[in-house]
């Protein structure tokens, strides 16, 4: 058997994967409990438009994906709060709209279909050293921000009205949170790809919720499930020649099914 760690691209994939695996449940737990999981899907499609811009302009697509998804996250939140459309309709508008924009930009420039496939489904082979630095830097920002605001995020998620009455700046915190969600989604592109990001953000949390523990234990379990999934997915990708994104998400699903059985057996 080959030694997996002798390959630079695998090491880069594992480094990046572990960062993404660690921050995804931090965002995912609040999205799932607020019944807002669909925003991860919307932001990932918005990121595709960002990737398309990057490929067209020959700029690192990860950077353009981050920029476009952060800007769009503000717009989504504004449209949602305006109450001019239902919250889920706002998400639908952005999801399909950004996909349309991405398609048009991509049709304007030819010759990067292979690259595009990697961004849609993820490919640890394509993770560059510069991506590692970007993901590490932005990942640390997300991690520290969530840790600093965890009290407020918990309160708003559980009882937003009471949090507002208590004087917690709910609008400010919600805006920061959606930006953190946008950053997380954009960072996960190289590992699981645009089409599978929401699974990595949502499924480990949903699996942890089946075990019916306290908030902190649920979060720790989701972290463990997420990191195991990323690690196992990368190993499966290397040894079984499977796409890493698919293998990671399938691992999260296997863990989810196991938690369902465990819950039933209890």
């Amino acid at each position: 058997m080959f030694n997996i760690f002798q390959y630079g691209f695998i090491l880069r994939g594992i480094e990046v994967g572990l960062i993404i695996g660690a921050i995804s449940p931090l965002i995912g737990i609040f999205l799932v409990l607020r019944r807002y999981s669909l925003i991860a899907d919307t932001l990932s499609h918005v990121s595709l438009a960002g990737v398309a811009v990057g490929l067209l302009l020959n700029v690192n697509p990860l950077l353009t994906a981050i920029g476009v998804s952060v800007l769009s996250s503000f717009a989504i939140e504004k449209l949602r709060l305006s109450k001019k459309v239902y919250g889920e309709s706002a998400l639908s508008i952005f999801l399909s709209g950004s996909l349309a924009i991405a398609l048009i930009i991509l049709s304007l420039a030819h010759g990067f279909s292979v690259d595009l496939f990697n961004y849609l489904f993820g490919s640890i082979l394509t993770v560059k050293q510069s991506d590692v630095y970007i993901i590490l830097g932005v990942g640390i920002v997300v991690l520290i921000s969530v840790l600093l605001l965890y009290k407020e995020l918990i309160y708003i998620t559980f009882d937003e009205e009471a949090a507002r009455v208590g004087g917690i700046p709910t609008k400010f915190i919600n805006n920061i949170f959606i930006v953190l969600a946008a950053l997380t989604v954009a960072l996960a592109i190289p590992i699981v790809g645009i089409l599978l990001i929401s699974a990595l953000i949502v499924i480990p949390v949903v699996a942890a919720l089946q075990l019916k523990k306290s908030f902190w234990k649920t979060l720790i379990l989701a972290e463990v499930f997420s990191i195991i999934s990323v690690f196992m997915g990368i190993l499966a990708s290397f040894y079984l020649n499977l796409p890493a994104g698919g293998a990671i998400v399938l691992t999260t699903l296997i863990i989810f099914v196991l938690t369902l059985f465990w819950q039933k057996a209890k």
Partner: protein
Amino acid sequence: MPEINHETTIIELKDVSFAYEKEFVVKDVSLVVHKGDYLGIIGPNGGGKSTLLKLILGLLNPTKGEVLLFGKNIEKFKDWPKFGYISQVVAHTDPHFPMTVREVVAMGRYPRLGLVHFPTKEDKEKVQKALEQVEMWEFRDRLIGDLSGGQKQRVFIARALAGEPEVIVLDEPTAGVDVKTQKQFYELLQKLNKELSLTLLLVSHELDVIEHEATEIAYINGSLIYYGAADKFVHSEYFEKLTEKGDHHV
């Protein structure tokens, strides 16, 4: 037992009106709530009682008039931890929310702590004290979704108490719980009102309960129809009219 100074003004509404679009839901309401008052806000559905509560809590801005809290205009008022708020929580709590009783009550401390400050040992002690006050300490590690309606109510009272409020505002807190549990809940409120001098504002449609529990009554149906002592309300023409119709739930 602390002496209650009923003269200290906690909440003052001056000719407050509120309109959704152009339709007035609350019209020209003026009232003063003093420290230690137990105010029952009653009225028919759509009569504006929950809107009035939201105006007092700053969740809505008045179309007209002025709201003063502790003598300050609500727009300048910053001391929100003085208010504990219990919304229609029992009916709406997500039964699958992964949170223990202790974690729920700890949230009551968060507004006092402020952004980027973490709970200390003292905060943990206050959480314990609040849970002991409502006799729920032994349930501290249970999940909130596993509790009965009455137990959840006590936990939410403890959450409010953990923030060391001067006023507790309750919006239809007994929705969805049985009569025996309701009785215990109102006994607890009486205890908090008397022993801790807490000012209580309670929105309810249960006229028969409120007339016994509250010291003051505000009867609102768009405008304020009656505002005064609860024992006088029982002998007033409004109460007679309501009960003549057999309307113990307004």
